[in-house]
């Protein structure tokens, strides 16, 4: 992430625990994930222009630790050698949508 005088790196260390529930109906297995998550995030600016406002003690690097609950719903389609999956979920009130195509051996 950069512009004329800003060069920003954002690092996150995240860990958590999910409990998953699912039931297979023929080739389709819908599922529900419920979990807890914690993130330690750092944003560092190596450019010359400041990115943080005056409420921060540093103008170049700040860190925070956040935690919350997460959930996801999805389904997997098992088509013999190939699997396809879609998932919708929320982490820290931000929604995400992911899809996969996979092979097993």
């Amino acid at each position, binding site marked *: *992430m950069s512009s004329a005088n800003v060069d920003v790196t954002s690092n996150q260390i995240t*860990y958590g625990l999910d409990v998953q529930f*699912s039931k297979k109906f023929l080739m389709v*297995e819908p599922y529900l994930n419920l979990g807890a998550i914690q993130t330690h995030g750092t944003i560092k600016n190596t450019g010359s*222009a400041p990115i943080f406002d005056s409420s*921060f003690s540093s103008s170049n690097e700040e860190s925070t630790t956040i935690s919350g609950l997460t959930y996801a719903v999805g389904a997997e389609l098992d088509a013999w050698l190939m699997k396809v999956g879609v998932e919708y979920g929320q982490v820290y009130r931000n929604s995400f949508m992911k899809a996969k195509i*996979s092979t*097993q051996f």
Partner: protein
Amino acid sequence: MKNIASIFLISILLTFKAFGSGIGLSSLTKSDFKKVNEEFAANKKHTAVSAASLLADDKKFEVSLIIGSSQSHTLGELSKAQDSSNDNAQSIPYVGLMGIMTLPKDLNAELLVLPVTHAYGFASGQLSGALKWSPKKYFDLPLNVAAKAFGGFSQNK
């Protein structure tokens, strides 16, 4: 496997293209800072896009290409404040390669990799893993149930 690798590389280029030139950060407040961290964390939350069941008994490995996106209202607003015509940062693209392996003791190990990849002014990378355990063999449950501990490191630049 070659097809998945090819789709993976094409996905990185396509997903980064719209997003990379769109981010702008300046005058971050403490509230913005927390929300931006939450948005990046939501984007990189470890998931195999898989149900609770473990890999089948006759399968030892699963290799997946995962693509997607996540909401980034705060990044979008901050970027738009810098350039009112910029709508590219309203969502963060996502792509990763997932490997799942059968372990003893009713465990599956998951490893998700996105090598730090630079494209269109944006770089993103992730390494995360998980251990998933299912008690299905020990209890006669009407549902598949599993517990998964996950952790990882991600970078956006």
